[in-house]
């Protein structure tokens, strides 16, 4: 039976054992996540570069200030904090599922996987609402001396610098890069959440069918959990770069 720690003087690198004390699948999941971190990092850094190269940047509190069923109220940061807490909470239920997996408790894994899937679906719904709100919500914007009404898309947005027009402050067109980066990066993240939910559903079905009990361990739940936590981790940085600063 297993020992709690490795023997002193264990020859990790002389073959026959994993120098990382982890299975091939888990090590490769870690390396996949690391390469994915570089992909997201490259996106966010290129966004930062564009943003640093502009004299004016969009104020997130003016763009993300609404809440479902409370349109028209100025509620900066409210909706995105809801999304953040949903994702943190679904991360907790995921890690609890992994914990139940260590204890070989099938019922516990099933329950926590269900909660995690619901959390992921709730996050995706929030994101769908937010995109819909940006793509359909029109704001007055001064274009070539005329007031027009623009929505927020990848090619234009109405959140540029404010100027005086007929005695009132009105926005001019905002930096194009804002919309493109926002939809690109939150879209790429949302796609990760979506695939995470699919993976979690597959894991739930496999748990329900008793595949992991037959195998004698719940390591697949751990690997799916790694992916799910990575999605939460990326959201922490997206939240920082798009909503907070």
């Amino acid at each position, binding site marked *: *039976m*297993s*020992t*709690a*720690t*490795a023997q002193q003087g264990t020859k*990790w690198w002389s073959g*026959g*054992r*994993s*120098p*990382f*004390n*982890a*299975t*091939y699948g888990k090590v490769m999941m*870690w390396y996949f996540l*690391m390469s994915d971190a570089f992909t997201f*990092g490259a996106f966010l*850094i*290129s966004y*930062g*570069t*564009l*943003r*640093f*190269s*502009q004299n004016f940047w969009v*104020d997130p*509190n003016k763009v993300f200030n609404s809440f479902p069923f409370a349109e028209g109220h100025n509620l*900066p*940061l409210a909706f995105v*904090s809801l999304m953040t*807490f949903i994702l*943190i*909470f679904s*991360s*907790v239920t*995921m*890690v*609890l599922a*992994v*914990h139940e997996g*260590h*204890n*070989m408790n099938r019922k516990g894994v099933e329950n926590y996987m269900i909660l995690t899937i619901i959390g992921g679906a709730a996050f995706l719904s929030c994101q769908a609402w937010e995109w819909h709100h940006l793509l359909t919500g029109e704001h007055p914007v001064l274009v070539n001396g005329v007031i027009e009404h623009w929505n927020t898309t990848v090619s234009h947005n109405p959140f540029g610098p404010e100027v005086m027009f007929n005695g009132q402050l009105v926005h001019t067109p905002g930096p194009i890069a804002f919309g493109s980066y926002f939809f690109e990066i939150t879209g790429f993240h949302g796609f990760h959440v979506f695939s995470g939910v699919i993976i979690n559903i597959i894991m739930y079905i496999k748990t329900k069918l008793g595949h992991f009990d037959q195998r*004698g*361990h719940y390591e697949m739940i*751990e690997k799916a*959990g790694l992916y799910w*936590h990575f999605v*939460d*981790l990326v959201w*922490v*940085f997206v*939240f*920082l770069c798009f*909503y*907070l*600063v």
Partner: protein
Amino acid sequence: MSEHTPISPEITFVPAHAEDTKKIWRTFWLLSVLTIIELTIGLTIYNIHKEPVPNATLVLAFKGMVCILTLAKAYYIVSVFMHLGEEVRNLIMTIVVPLCLFVWFITAFLVDGNSWKELRNRYNRPADAPTEQVAPVKE
């Protein structure tokens, strides 16, 4: 808690997993508190921007604080939720050391973006400004 058989013969030892979920819930509360502090700072920045002359240094300081809090959250997610803290040192290092490239990556690109802005502000003229001097036509 049941006894573990190693998942594969490659595994030298099975790390001891906590019997209870105390640590998980503690981390959850910690992450929530850090997020609430971040949101408070976000709202503070929002209120500073409402002033007639926003204090740019103060805004920058608050933004720096949010960045540090975000890194703290990332540390807790990776170390506790992803159990990287329980892995052997070899594995931790192969993940963490390559990520150090980000330090240079971020610095270099943000400095480049900033320099791009300054060069443009210094040398770009308004679109309607004459770009070359035309010599007056002599009779």
